[in-house]
């Protein structure tokens, strides 16, 4: 059973781990890629509703992990497949979640739930595997911590820094994956809840990657002699991450910086901008984003509940480069004088279209050029 803080109750059948879990209830409209969603650290603190009614069909496999474990607090679907059918599948999706302690509510009218969240906005909820007295459940939902003001990034970040060297693998003998570039530069990646495919993409375009904890100071990063710095995606509200923003402010101008998602928001803060919470966020793999520089539209993968307010940015200092065509939210900007750029969406996809891979090449080019200076 799912109980929302506004008192709404949705009945379903429990699968996965037989436990209760609290979180902000959000929905994702991607048709494919549930495993990547489960394991995207940006979902920590959130119970995820998938709008695709048939989930689990192709099971789960190690290659499609975006981190070591699932980070969603709970999963809500219309129907959970009782078998896994795919040549790459290693286990059933349900078992994958059960083993990692994630509860699932299936046979829920997810469309009604999504329409509710769309009109009322995302809200806290409790997924109670055993059910229970609705009133008490609603109470528990109300008493749970709200997303706003919560620093989840440091919670999900790595404790110690490490080197990453896996690259992009083809998923089929017929997938033409461009050869990996020789590692030629050193990128230090801040882990605010980083997705593996970002790291794979960085390695693929020729970076030697060192991942560092969210708390790492600018000085310690400089000490690693990076040719470029990457600011990762991550969960929750950017507002409380003032420490991170300060470090980034110090790093601007030292080396090229590329930020994605939370990284983009932190850059926004570092440049004196403000962030705000979206009513129900952007979570899906079909968002049209206009690249105002090339005037081309990219179909992009999204997962963010907060956004940077373009009016809060000093536009003589930064140039707004990407706009969401659905609701005109800011999806990317770059510094006018310094080698700094970022996007709010997910060019690494996983899940989602590959239209925006070019941004990783842009990052490399930025490093090359600034190297020559």
């Amino acid at each position, binding site marked *: 059973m799912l109980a929302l803080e506004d008192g709404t109750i949705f009945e379903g059948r429990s699968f996965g781990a037989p436990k209760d879990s609290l979180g902000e209830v959000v929905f994702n*409209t991607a048709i*494919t*890629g549930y495993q*990547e969603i489960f394991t995207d650290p940006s979902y920590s603190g959130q119970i995820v509703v998938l709008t*695709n009614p048939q989930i689990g069909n*192709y099971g789960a496999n190690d290659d499609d992990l975006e981190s070591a474990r699932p980070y969603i607090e709970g999963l809500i679907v219309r129907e959970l497949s009782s078998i896994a059918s795919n040549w790459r599948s290693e286990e059933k999706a349900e078992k994958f979640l059960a083993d990692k302690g994630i509860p699932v509510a299936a046979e829920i009218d997810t469309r*009604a739930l999504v329409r509710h969240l769309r009109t009322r906005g995302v809200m806290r909820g409790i997924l109670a595997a055993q059910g229970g007295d609705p009133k008490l459940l609603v109470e528990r939902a109300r008493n749970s911590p709200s997303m706003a003001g919560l620093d989840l990034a440091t919670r999900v970040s790595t404790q110690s820094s490490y080197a990453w060297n896996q690259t992009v693998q083809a998923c089929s003998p017929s997938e033409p994956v461009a050869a990996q570039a020789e590692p030629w530069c050193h990128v230090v990646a801040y882990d605010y809840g980083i997705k593996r495919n970002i790291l794979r993409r960085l390695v693929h375009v020729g970076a030697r990657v060192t991942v560092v904890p969210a708390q790492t100071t600018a000085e310690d990063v400089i000490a690693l002699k990076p040719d470029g710095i990457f600011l990762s995606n991550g969960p929750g509200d950017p507002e409380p991450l003032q420490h991170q923003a300060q470090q980034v402010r110090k790093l601007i101008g030292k080396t090229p910086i590329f930020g994605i998602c939370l990284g983009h928001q932190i850059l926004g803060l570092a440049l004196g901008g403000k962030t705000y919470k979206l009513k129900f966020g952007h979570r899906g793999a079909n968002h049209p984003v206009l690249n105002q520089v090339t005037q081309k539209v990219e179909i992009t993968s999204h997962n963010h509940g907060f956004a940077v307010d373009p009016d809060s940015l000093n536009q003589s200092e930064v140039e707004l480069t990407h706009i969401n065509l*659905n609701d005109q939210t800011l999806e990317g900007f770059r510094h006018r004088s310094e080698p700094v750029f970022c996007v709010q969406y997910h060019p690494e996809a996983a899940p989602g279209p590959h239209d925006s891979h070019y941004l990783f090449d842009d990052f490399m080019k930025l490093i090359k050029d600034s190297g020559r200076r």
Partner: protein
Amino acid sequence: MPRRNDIHRVLIIGSGPIVIGQACEFDYSGAQACKALKADGYEVVLINSNPATIMTDPNLADHTYIEPLSVEFAEEVIRIQRPDALLSTVGGQTALNLSVALAEAGVLDRYGVELIGAKVESIKKAEDRLLFKDAMRKIGLDTPQSQLVNNVDDGVAFANRIGYPVILRPSFTMGGSGGGIAYNREELHEILERGLDLSPVHEVLIEESVLGWKEFELEVMRDLADNAIIVCSIENFDPMGVHTGDSITVAPAQTLTDREYQMMRDASLRCLREIGVDTGGSNVQFAINPQDGRMVIVEMNPRVSRSSALASKATGFPIAKIAAKLAVGYRLDEIKNDITKVTPACFEPTLDYVVVKIPRWQFEKFPGAEPVLGTQMKSVGEVMAIGRTFKQALAKGIRSLETGKPAAAEKFDPDLIPKRLITPNPERLGYVRFAFEQGWTLEQIHEITAIDPWFLRQIREMVDLELELGKVSLDTVSREQLLTAKRDGISDTRLGLLWKTGSRAVRKKRCELGITAVFNRVDTCAAEFESFTPYLYSSYESENEAAPSDRKKVMILGSGPNRIGQGIEFDYCCCHASFALQEFGYESIMVNCNPETVSTDYDTSDRLYFEPLTREEVLNIYDVEKPDGVIVQFGGQTPLNLALPLKAAGVPIIGTDPADIDLAEDRKLFGRLLDDLKIPSPPNGSATSADEACAIARRLGFPVLVRPSYVLGGRAMVIAYDEEMVRRYMREAVVFSQDRPVLIDRFLESATEIDVDALADQDGSVLIAGIMEHIEEAGVHSGDSSCVLPPQGLSREILNTIQDYTARLARALHVIGLMNAQYAIKDGEVFVLEVNPRASRTVPYVSKATGVPLPKIAVGLMLGKKLAEFRHLTGDVVSGVLPVSQCFVKSPVFPFAKFPGVDPALGPEMRSTGEVMGVGENFGEAFGKAQLSAGTPLPDSGTVFISVNDHDKAAAVEIAATFADYGFQLAATRGTAALLKAAGLAVKTVFKVNEGRPNAVDLLKAGSLKLVIYTTTGSHSFSDEQAIRRTAVAYRVPCITTISGARASAQAVVSARRDPIRVWSLQEIHKLAANAR
């Protein structure tokens, strides 16, 4: 990049007649394109030979030509209209091929017409299988090994190298015509010869088999700025080896991870860019090896396709409309998404439901054709169902098919299971279910079908649930169990059978338990944004999104899946009903389940319910909408079968009362009515046993015509020449007769058949819209014979009699709206064959010919208006017969080429899939154009082969003479030859098959006969005749099986010599007609 202002007039080419592999999905796409361009201020010129289409309505384009889709006639249209551009991508393969032909004939250059949508190079790169493969390899995409051959020996050599089975695919044919799978040398010979012959470029591709791989399709759109999106992914339930058009397909794809799906997405975009389709929609097909994920690209269609229509309906994204806008320069992000209003069309629709498409086949109409499925499309129609889950969608899809028998009542044979599972066939899905019921395991079934385990598991769960439900009864079933059943799509009917209570009891119970259907919206965005378009499907979820209005409203029941005898003509009428309702200030509500049609376009009606046409589903909608009336007389037999049950359930049916409709269908009651009216009909009787039938036949005298009651398209109707035939029929017919008696009529030999469409209002005023004289005599189904407006050979008094009968019948049946009557004229006497108080197959044709919108007026009459109120539409004619200004011939189109080995002789059972219209100043001209459009162009020289039965011989002489006068040589079988010689004609005698060689068949194969006139000698059983007719079809030699048809072709040949190539637009014709009145 906004719209182009350097072009003003755009020529759109339609797809011609409905044929297997190219059906009304192209009316849908063409109509959308016309609307979109016109709305944007372009002047639209349209050419399409199919009168039964919405796109050829005079108000859709500015200049509408119902003319042959041939280079000569298209050039004439271009010469007159001087379009700036030609949009080649919305009229299927036909339009694509004609566009290429026009370009290569230099016509486009000569008149400075720019090809938009796809350029010739791109079309060729995509359509020429070999160029395509090279292009794909160039961009690193995998394709099956293959070689292009233009002779049998090379084919055999290559096959020996790569090993059998091999796939054969002729270049430039649509729907896989002439293709196939060869498992051995003989099959290779047979298929290859046919394929080479059918390919306009005499090339066939022989290809490595990837049978059993997973098959997928992506629908892609791209604009001039190179923005590209995937509208929809489709997964085939039936693995590679079954044509996508014959496969059950599912959207979105169900068994691909994101990585795999994105690999496919990347590949399709690279494909589009390499082929150079710079704007519009394309369809890319892939196969994936379920063992290791190897992916090959099967083909790409650089145009809007059957699958695009499906994808549009499945997602709510109007591919054809947007393709047209992109072709004139718009960018995807400059076009709004109609459904959300706020977001742009430049996004990828996401689904929170599952869509299942199931094809409908009609092998039973083609005795001699093996009901097996392969790489060549055989289905005549399809249904689509939308459900919140796959199970629900599949179950809905199955009942949308209207197979006549509820799934539970189907007969399966345990011994046939392996056979029915191994070789794909129309019954395979049923047998998969049955196999599970019989205890087969998922692994066993997967082993021999290669159907993905995920699909099989879903079906297994459906079977298990029914077994569970079988254990309880209507009284003991729990609310939860019943709800689960409904959520999984099980119908009340099925539950009623399971529990032996009938569906009504089940409905009652579940309503008591508060288990009622709700409606969800198709919104392109999985509810992320608000939907402003009421495009709905039913489910048993928790919230109803229907939001019905409180306006005056009328619900229209559509005609379901296309099938022979009930096709696009009825959808045409339903669409017009909808337009008319809106014009008369009513809200129009459409209910239909056919994804190919215009009626299921979300902007045809105010509200669209994509639902099966069953009592249960229609009542669910009725309960929510509470319309003021329901229209059942436009959708053919499908809604008519629902009329009485609906009326019984308190649904207000408007127009002719269902009881009267029933009276007209019920031969006994109708016979009595005719007696009262003193209107003659062929002597007849009805029987429920073989003996009774024979007794009646003896009384009437042979030959007799036997048939079941209540079917459309002369289903299972035969001419019996003796008792044995009657008995055999009684043994076999029962299945179809659905517990209704078998009807027996005296068969009127060599009688002239007449079709009449009429309008009648509640005061009994009757207006006859058209009296159509058939070319073929009675005995050839009205849907299968050519007919002409105005009638050519009928005396004044006969015409008066027909008018008189029609008017009295309409009044006697209290017809309000449309009525169709068929008469046979034998020795100057007029007999009524049947009366259908409903819209008929000929309504669109008559509307186009007369310029009077019959369905629109009919709707007005149903709403209580009077005929007199429509003077402005009928040009003041309110009684009598509407005049026509030209000669209009409607000719049928047959799918025989798809069913090798089937006897093409025409009979009382309808077998044509579509029709064309020819316009001319004289009959010969109109008939010649119609034949050309129908794909059986008459020769302008060469040898005419004649063989006629005795009572045709007299007529044959005069016809042969005409051909001789125009320089044709004559050949004939002995009897006929003797006769012609006697009449002083030079004629070459030809052996019949059993007489020696070279015989007629040899000559046909050798290509030395250009036209065959071969009338049957009574019962259609002489193998000799069949051999000749079959060969003619196989070798594309026009084959005429009736003497009247022969006479018509003679006149056509004369006209071809005498009259210049000329064309008329409907708009001109209708002006002429108006003046004539």
